[in-house]
């Protein structure tokens, strides 16, 4: 069954900007899909609004449309490009939903476009709860018994039939308000009553509770010949109840016998066959730990986050195979790229254990509810591969970059066992650490099992780790013991502490003992066949499988898990660095532990080391590969933070040196350097105590911008307006980052500008300048940014270029540099210098056509910019205007304030491009998922200081067809200015208040600048959260509001050309 004959041109739908629940895994799957299509000579068209991805690089597809992922744009592209087929199954839920929408309205049929990989019926059967339930019942596959009730009596009847525990889910309430799990008669009655009264239609769904069941996932693939295979099964350490994206997941499943496994495998295969999916599919099941009873929980009829994980866990490229199947191949015709002489139609077998831990944004969002449940909250994940479970677990822990190198529960000294036991009854990001601490204190694992329902197998393994801890003493240097510790994943850094020495000293002693890791290959087949794929992981075993080929090699450090502030942009740069090294004929080696990304696709580099990006693991790779040097500048702060240690260990840092990096990051040196260069910067200093902060603040004057040194994404960056706020901040910072000075700057209000440049030590080439739409005060990652700049004079631009050149040269930058400026009173001040690849590199590379990371990599490897054809100065500006829009995941994070400020909150970015600024803006908003209204009601809740400034804006909004809603003061001002306004009560001041209007859908847009800050009881906060929960657009910056107005205006006055 060869390729379908009629396919010459295929449109691939991407997944768009990164949000919680839909992240870099779709860059990985999309990139694979495009490559798989092109191999077969198919012309590829891509639509994806996410500029930060590898898949939107222009060489990845024949045509890349960086346009909004909406039905409107997909249709336009289909009409314009006339593809033979559309492939939507690699673009996450976004891709699938778009396909569903267009299929339903008959668009594909009309345009004679084939839908590949899935059909309308399948999507509906898999995604519609009721249809899915009916299909399962028809197949004899168990689903949790459920019913819809409108009265307590009906509820009681169902309870009599099924028995407790039961889950009560009120209909149409957000976040399941009023619902819960009932385990007693009393609870049941109470919750049903509360559920019914909370539901606007007095209706509840009552479902058998399967909390505590094992959660098992199957990643399966089917082809049109009906061949089916299981790529991988996975077991969640957290039992049913926690979203699989928020669960610690192990592959393969550990606590199931073959009989259990085959039962669930049979069920999964029956389901994919019944759904007739040609491609990948994920089936989630719940298995009773005490019987054979199981339930089908959910089916995803597409490639998913779990399939990316399964691909990395097994080496089996699911997205690639799914794509080949979609274009007509059978699995027994597709070669397994790992072995190169066996076929894709087989089931991978592992000879190691894989463990994934999610990376949550709670370090950024202190106020967020950390309880894990059915709504995913993680932004990223890490994976650890080990020959033991313990190794996989501890590797993952140290790779999370949460400043922990072991199962240590922070701040637990003052907590009693009872308190800790109470805490672990709720799943949170800290639970694994808390239960470890309890085991350490001697609490029986059976008790912990009773509370958490975590399988005793996992708890026993954690107990093994704790037991080994107790055997550690500074005098115990028995080689077998040290080896055992390392085989069980203990980090050098943790052990060094226990052995009372530095990590370097410990490492040296360990190596003298001969305790050195070997590297094993991930080969899909447990060594049954020879593997040709250099995909390695470390283990303290006998045989090292890495064979040197004698080629000169370079090691690139990856950026670890995706988190706010360090997103897929850094993976993008890492991949480009790898490609550049390969282009130079050198062996490109990468170390990274993020299973979602393109950089950990074994096809990208010449050698992939899937290990944590920590000093220990990086050094192990260096010892093994002996590269000519290490490139740290593309792996974000993760990699930059290792420069010092690596440099001290005598490792050759390729690119900007450790000393130059320090020059940019060490406040005092930095200030001095800029002074010498006669480049202006906001007045500032660094302070190390509350008292010092107070006294220095008098010199600088409020408002002040405060941040800890050496952090990313503006973490803990804050603007303070008085001594009280300053004191509070200092106390917090001294506690969280003891011993680290706090940077204190005069907060200047002005236009923010970013310059990214490449330097080889002499020549400084600037691809372009980006201007922020929002004034300073909003983190650069959360700002709209435009290229080329729209408001800067030639003089200022010249200034910026000169300063950039001076800084890059004098700092001896080799590679990339990112400088943030603030323009005030026609003068440019330097805010910060990042001697590394920045978040803007992929965006700017795409809009300027300069492959920045590649050029920079080559520069670090001795190929001067002149040699590469770049001279000092700025590249001529492009005609097309490109705007980057931030994308947020607030709806996933309960309790997080959406007001923008100096600390970054966005999870992704989207882009809009067009010939005019307004059109580009309009597309940028749409790409970011902001489906702005063209008319309607605006709730205006603005701070007094902003009122004057807002009036002209509101007048123009009114011209477009908007009226206003405001509380007394503002309402008065608006009506005085002849603007139509309805007055509404402040929160809690009347029977009806403005929150009711938001909830009832009377408001289409909110402009809100009041009471920003940490106070969650403030009105501003309540309005912002109500906006998120009711899906109303809420602007917290006047500048963004102006931009939105322009977008609305251009939409009102014409249509948008593609």
């Amino acid at each position, binding site marked *: 069954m060869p390729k379908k004959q009629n396919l010459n041109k295929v449109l691939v739908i991407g997944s768009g900007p990164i949000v919680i629940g839909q992240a870099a895994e779709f860059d990985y799957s999309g990139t694979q899909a495009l490559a798989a299509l092109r191999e077969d000579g198919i012309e590829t068209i891509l639509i994806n609004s996410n500029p930060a991805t590898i898949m939107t690089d222009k060489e990845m597809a024949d045509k890349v449309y960086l346009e909004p992922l909406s039905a409107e744009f997909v249709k336009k592209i289909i009409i314009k490009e006339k593809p033979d087929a559309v492939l939507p199954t690699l673009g996450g839920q976004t891709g699938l939903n778009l396909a569903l929408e267009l299929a339903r309205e008959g668009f594909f049929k009309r345009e004679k476009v084939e839908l590949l990989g899935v059909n309308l019926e399948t999507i509906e059967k898999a995604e519609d709860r009721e249809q899915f339930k009916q299909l399962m019942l028809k197949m004899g596959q168990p689903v949790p018994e459920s019913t819809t009730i409108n009265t307590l009596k009906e509820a009681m009847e169902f309870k009599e039939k099924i028995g407790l525990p039961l889950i009560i889910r009120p209909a149409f309430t957000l976040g399941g308000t009023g619902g819960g799990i009932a385990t007693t008669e009393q609870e049941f009655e109470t919750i049903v009553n509360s559920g019914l009264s909370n539901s606007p239609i007095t209706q509840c769904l009552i479902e058998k509770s399967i909390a505590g069941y094992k959660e098992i996932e199957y990643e399966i693939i089917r082809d049109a*010949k*009906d*061949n089916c*295979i*299981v790529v991988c099964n996975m077991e969640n350490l957290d039992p049913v109840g926690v979203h699989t994206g928020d669960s610690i997941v192990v592959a*393969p*499943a*550990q*606590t*199931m*016998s*073959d*009989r*259990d*496994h*085959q039962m669930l*495998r*049979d069920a999964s295969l029956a389901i994919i066959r019944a759904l007739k999916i040609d491609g990948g599919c994920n089936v989630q099941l719940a298995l009773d*730990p*005490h*019987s054979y009873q199981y339930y089908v929980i959910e089916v995803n009829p597409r490639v998913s986050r779990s399939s990316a994980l399964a691909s990395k866990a097994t080496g089996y490229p699911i997205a690639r195979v799914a794509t080949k199947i979609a274009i007509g191949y*059978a*699995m*027994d015709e597709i070669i397994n790229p790992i072995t190169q*002489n*066996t*076929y894709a*139609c*087989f*089931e*991978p*077998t*592992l*000879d*190691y*254990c894989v463990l994934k831990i999610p990376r949550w944004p709670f370090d950024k969002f202190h106020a967020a509810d950390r309880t894990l449940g059915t709504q995913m909250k993680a932004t990223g994940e890490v994976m650890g591969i080990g*020959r*033991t*479970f313990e190794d996989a677990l501890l590797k993952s822990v140290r790779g999370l970059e949460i400043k922990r190198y072991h199962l240590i529960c922070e701040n637990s000294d003052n907590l009693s066992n009872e308190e800790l036991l109470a805490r672990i009854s709720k799943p949170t990001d800290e639970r694994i650490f808390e239960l470890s601490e309890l085991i350490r204190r001697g609490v029986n694992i059976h008790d912990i099992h009773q509370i958490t329902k975590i*399988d*005793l*197998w996992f708890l*026993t393994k954690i107990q093994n780790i704790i037991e080994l801890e107790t055997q550690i003493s500074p005098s115990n240097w028995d080689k077998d013991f040290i080896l055992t510790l390392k085989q069980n994943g203990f980090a050098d850094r943790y052990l060094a502490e226990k052995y009372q020495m530095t990590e370097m000293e410990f490492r040296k002693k360990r190596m003298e003992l001969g305790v050195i890791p070997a590297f*094993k290959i991930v080969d899909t*087949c*447990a*060594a*049954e*066949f*020879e593997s040709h794929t250099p995909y390695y992981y470390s283990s303290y*075993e*006998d*045989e090292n*499988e890495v064979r040197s080929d004698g080629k000169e090699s370079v090691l690139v450090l990856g950026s670890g898990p995706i988190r706010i502030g360090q997103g897929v942009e850094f993976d993008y740069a890492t991949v480009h660095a790898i490609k550049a090294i390969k282009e130079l004929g050198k062996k490109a080696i990468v170390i990274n532990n993020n299973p979602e990304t393109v950089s950990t696709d074994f096809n990208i580099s010449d050698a992939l080391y899937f290990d944590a990006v920590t000093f220990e693991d990086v050094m192990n790779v260096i010892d093994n590969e002996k590269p000519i040097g290490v490139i740290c500048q593309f792996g974000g702060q993760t990699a930059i933070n290792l420069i010092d240690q690596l440099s001290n260990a005598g490792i050759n840092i390729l690119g900007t040196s450790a000393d130059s990096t320090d020059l940019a990051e060490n406040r005092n040196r930095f200030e001095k350097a800029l002074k010498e260069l006669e480049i202006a910067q906001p007045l500032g200093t660094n302070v190390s105590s509350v008292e010092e902060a107070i006294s220095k603040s008098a010199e600088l004057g409020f408002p002040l911008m405060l941040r800890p040194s050496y952090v990313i994404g503006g973490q803990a960056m804050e603007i303070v307006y008085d001594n009280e706020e300053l004191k509070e901040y200092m106390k917090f910072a001294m506690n969280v980052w003891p011993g680290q000075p706090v940077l204190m700057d005069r907060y200047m209000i002005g236009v923010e500008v970013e310059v990214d440049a490449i330097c080889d030590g002499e020549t400084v080439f600037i691809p372009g300048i980006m201007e922020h739409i929002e004034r300073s005060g909003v983190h650069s990652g959360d700002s709209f940014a435009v290229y080329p700049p729209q408001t800067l004079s030639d003089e200022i631009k010249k200034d910026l270029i000169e300063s950039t050149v001076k800084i890059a040269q004098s700092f001896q930058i080799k590679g990339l540099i990112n400088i943030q400026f603030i323009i005030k009173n026609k003068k440019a001040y330097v805010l910060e210098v990042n001697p590394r690849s920045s978040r803007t590199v992929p965006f700017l590379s795409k809009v300027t056509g300069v492959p920045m990371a590649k050029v920079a990599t080559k520069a670090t490897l001795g190929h001067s910019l002149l040699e590469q054809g770049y001279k000092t100065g700025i590249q001529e500006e492009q005609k097309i205007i490109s705007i980057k829009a931030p994308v947020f995941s607030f709806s996933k994070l309960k309790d997080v304030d959406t007001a923008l400020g100096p600390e970054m909150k966005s999870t992704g970015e989207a882009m809009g491009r067009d010939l005019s600024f307004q059109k580009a803006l309009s597309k940028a908003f749409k790409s970011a998922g902001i489906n702005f209204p063209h008319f309607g009601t605006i709730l205006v809740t603005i701070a007094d200081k902003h009122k004057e400034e807002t009036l002209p804006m509101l007048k123009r909004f009114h011209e477009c067809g908007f009226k206003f809603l405001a509380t007394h003061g503002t309402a008065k001002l608006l009506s005085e200015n002849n603007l139509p306004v309805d007055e509404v009560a402040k929160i809690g001041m009347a029977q009806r208040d403005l929150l009711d209007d938001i909830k009832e859908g009377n408001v289409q847009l909110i402009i809100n600048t009041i009471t920003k800050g940490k106070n969650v009881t403030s009105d501003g906060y309540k309005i912002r959260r109500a906006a998120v929960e009711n899906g109303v657009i809420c602007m917290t910056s006047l500048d963004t509001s102006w931009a939105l107005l322009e977008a609305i205006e251009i939409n009102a006055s014409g249509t948008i050309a593609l």
Partner: protein
Amino acid sequence: MNEINAFLYLEDGNEFTAKSFGHTPDSPVLSEIVFNTSMQGYQEVITDPSYCDQTIVMTYPLIGNYGINQDDSEAITPHLKALIVREYCDHPSNFRARQSLADFLTNNNIVGIHQIDTRKLTRLIREKGTMKSILSFKQLSESEKAELFKQDLPTNQIPKVTTSAISHFPSNGGKRVVLVDFGYKKNILESLLKRGCDVIVVPYNTSFEKIKEFSPQGILLSNGPGDPKSILEVLPTIQKLQQEYLLFAICMGHQIFALANGADTEKMKFGHRGGNHPVKDLILDRTYITSQNHGYCVKDSSIANTELEVTQINLNDKTIEGLKHKNYQAYSVQYHPEASPGPNDTNYLFDVFVDRMNEVHHA
């Protein structure tokens, strides 16, 4: 759990040290060493009589996780010599677990060792083929090793594992199957019983006349250990059976069926053992994931001048996985449709067998 040091010596000169978790005999154990790639199903593997006299290396590193239960054994006693795993788990966690793997091995006098680089071991076997190995609980001198390696490996395993007596598993009105026992796995019997068959299990060397006395409607030749050529005496019986009865053969049965029809068998470099082997059915143009355990196979080149036809091949190495007779109602598969452990994808072959019994009319 005892933590006695164990020493593993391979014929090619490689040596390993490990820890014991099973039986620790005084004298060294000489056996053939093979690997199995199943991630689950160790209980079925170690109780499969086809592993008679062999030492098994499990490639999956964590073994023992769900203990040993009462239901999943493929025979009452295990016949293997030793089990080698990366890490043995002494805290089984599964609702069916009745004892630990260590206890099971110890009670059955089977050697078990762990804390060893099983991937290295697997790679050695893959590169050099299955070979002799010595397991010892004290270090052996060069001459002791040489002496042992000079010895031949035990052969003729089938007589050791076959049933000594005929046993009948009656069913009311079901089709009667004679299951010829070369070392059958329990799930072959159960697969027949589950489909309502009336099964008579007979020793591997039962005569044609004796089998005829049972008036079967179908014959099933079972799996079994070792070299099919060690029991050439059964070939005339098979030749007669296939002419008279519907005959289905599995694994060892498949190889004997081939030999009985003039084809030849050969030893494979390291065999197929695991639950993930793709088999392509050439007639249906479908590929199934199968459970496999064999060290010998039917020689591809030997089929040409026989009345046999190749119906299925291994997708990976193209070895013969299925045969059928051109003139008789006789066919065979090299793999294990009864699974246990492994995928149930080819269970349907038992349905086919039963359906055919319903169709075939005897004189």
